[in-house]
């Protein structure tokens, strides 16, 4: 593959996942017991040999900046190239100052790479981007778009771009939005490969047009003008843009086949920020089954069909089932949680009972550690 730089566009639609994004962008929502959403695409890029990643965020990026740091976990703390964080997204360019854009464009110009991978973060998957790049180069197309075929378009991938693909030629004839009426759809995974100049053209155009619509619309406007190549991704993908899809995606990871593909692939590991927690202690009397558990937990109670983040205490008699517990949560004696999502730093009092259901998991928002 050629030498690519990457732009991760993290200005993502948070409308249907608000409970988890009051303090953070989608990209830094914890997922899979110890990852953040952005870890997957960032690792995909690094595993394909990309060494220059610009991350474009909107406001509210403190949690993301804290997670990414200097990029060390992804080996992106480089003297030559590496990780660059830009505090404005590509979608709301009309709100940003032209000077800011120009400064950021300088970063894109300065990179020696002639090609770019543009991607969102909220499509969680483990993808061989090197293979995508090879296919892009072989196709001779101006732009390659990665998509996935789903038969769950009525429940998943809500509001995502859909592609109309000619079944005979494989060509993209149009792009629209998934309004969740049918089951079958070809969903755009918001991963694009193109020449660097092409991307800068799009950015200038969207700025000068004061385009309020999605930046990606601008790309699809070129259908029929430029040569597009559609790359079909056959692996597991989940789209993290609603609370229920977040819940389902986490539960999917309890399946060893899914987790083997997603984050137990030794050729393409998923990297994340390292913390220094001890191993997890399972105390006599605990009952744990079908669960993903991060290090640093202490479990005396019952945990089934659940995901626990780092430093979760489950006290004696407490029951956690079908739930997602994020980092640093203490579940006191005899509490009973079922189908809940507990965000970071929450204390669940003794004997508390919290229940949601599969379609409407109950979310307990993050508590600030100020007392």
């Amino acid at each position: 593959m050629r030498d690519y730089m990457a732009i991760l566009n993290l200005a993502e639609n948070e409308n249907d996942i608000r409970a988890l994004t009051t303090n953070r962008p989608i990209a830094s929502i914890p997922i899979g017991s110890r990852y953040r959403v952005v870890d997957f695409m960032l690792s995909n890029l690094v595993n394909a040999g990309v060494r220059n990643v610009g991350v474009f965020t909107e406001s509210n990026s403190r949690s993301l900046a804290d997670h990414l740091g200097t990029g060390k976990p992804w080996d992106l703390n480089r003297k030559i190239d590496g990780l660059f964080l830009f505090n404005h997204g590509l979608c709301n360019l009309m709100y940003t100052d032209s000077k800011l854009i120009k400064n950021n464009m300088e970063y894109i110009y300065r990179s020696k790479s002639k090609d770019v991978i543009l991607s969102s973060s909220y499509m969680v998957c483990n993808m061989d981007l090197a293979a995508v790049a090879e296919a892009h180069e072989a196709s001779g197309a101006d732009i390659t778009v990665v998509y996935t075929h789903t038969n769950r378009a009525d429940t998943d991938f809500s509001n995502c771009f859909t592609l109309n693909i000619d079944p005979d030629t494989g060509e993209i004839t149009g792009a629209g939005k998934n309004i969740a009426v049918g089951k079958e759809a070809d969903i755009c995974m918001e991963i694009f490969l193109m020449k660097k100049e092409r991307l800068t053209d799009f950015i200038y155009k969207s700025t000068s047009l004061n385009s309020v619509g999605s930046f990606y619309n601008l790309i699809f406007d070129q259908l029929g003008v430029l040569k597009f190549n559609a790359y079909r991704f056959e692996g597991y993908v989940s789209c993290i843009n609603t609370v229920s899809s977040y819940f389902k995606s986490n539960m999917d990871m309890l399946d060893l086949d899914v987790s083997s593909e997603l984050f137990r692939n030794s050729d393409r590991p998923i990297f994340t920020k390292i913390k220094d927690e001890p191993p997890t202690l399972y105390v006599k009397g605990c009952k744990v089954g079908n669960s993903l558990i991060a290090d640093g937990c202490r479990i005396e109670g019952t945990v089934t069909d659940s995901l626990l983040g780092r430093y979760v205490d489950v006290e004696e008699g407490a029951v956690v089932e079908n739930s997602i517990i994020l980092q640093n949560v203490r579940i006191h004696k005899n509490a009973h949680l079922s189908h809940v999502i507990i965000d970071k730093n929450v204390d669940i009092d003794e004997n508390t009972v919290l229940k949601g259901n599969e379609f409407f998991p109950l979310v307990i928002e993050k508590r600030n550690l100020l007392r």
Partner: protein
Amino acid sequence: MIHKNMVALILAGGQGSRLGAMTRKVAKPAVPFGGKYRIIDFALSNCSNSGIDTVGILTQYKPQQLSSHIGIGTPWDLDRVHGGVAILPPYMSEAGGDWYRGTANAVYQNLGYLDQFDPSYVLILSGDHIYKMDYRKMLDAHIAAGADATIAVIDVPLEEASRFGIMNTDETGRITSFDEKPEHPKSTLASMGIYIFSYANLKKHLEDDALDPASDNDFGKNIIPAMLAAGENLQAYRFEGYWKDVGTVQSFWEANMDLLKADNDVKLFQNDWKLYTETASIPSQYIGAEAKLTDSLISEGCVILGEVEHSVIFPGVKIGRNVRVVDSIIMEDCVLEDNVIVNKSILLTGVTVKANNVVGNGADIAVIDEGRVLSGSGYLN
């Protein structure tokens, strides 16, 4: 030259021959411990938690894994612009070169390293002890007593005292005499092998010691007795808390099992005195629907489908269905296939136990060498 108040030196060159197969490929300080650590992480984490930012690590025996574990010291926040971590192996010079011949000689050969920081005090540590200790408090005591040297001691049972170097002190804590492994101990204050020296005085003693051909060049045998003979002020600093020298297979196993108590004395879960180590990016542990876990420490990356009781499981271990692991230590990336029993055993890194095998007889500790594949069926030790 930027002056450093106290520089630490960790003696990490020992073989630890009584650990048998465990130290066949690595120096004792690099032996994996406690589910994700290596033994030297305790001394290194104590240094960074005590605010010491300049640490020299003296290596000699099979240093490769140890050196690669330490790297540039990032996990312990010791990747510093000035100071930080330095690995100090024996070296050649114009006058030839030599292995480290004893603890004092090892430090003597690195006076040049120490001089560049112009330290007021030098902290000498062993790289093979399990404990959490704030060296700042020990330094405060050293300064308050106006001591030339301060030696950390721990109260041991009288019947065990003859296994240690015993410090005899007066009522103020000043050391009056020192007995190496005495048959009839006069006190129960055992040296922990942790020393703080005022640097200028130590340097003088090390230079004198190097000129003495009869000397064993050892802190316990030569330097401390020489200081006592010179009437210098040596203080015993009493340490209260968990401390273990994991010198034998038995004590290594015991120290690991000590971690399995919910409120273990090592305080593994103590957040304001964390243990740091080199950590890989691997997934959380997966516990299967049929698993049964009791009093065990399990690390990330494991897939546990069977039963684990009173055991320490390192990262990336796969435990199959209908497996029973009891009183054991299973190191990184071991694979226990279905229908296996492991009883009171230490499986070193990368061991595979094929299906339908039994390892360990439950009486003696079985140690299975790194990377072995145990196949066939029946009892294996």
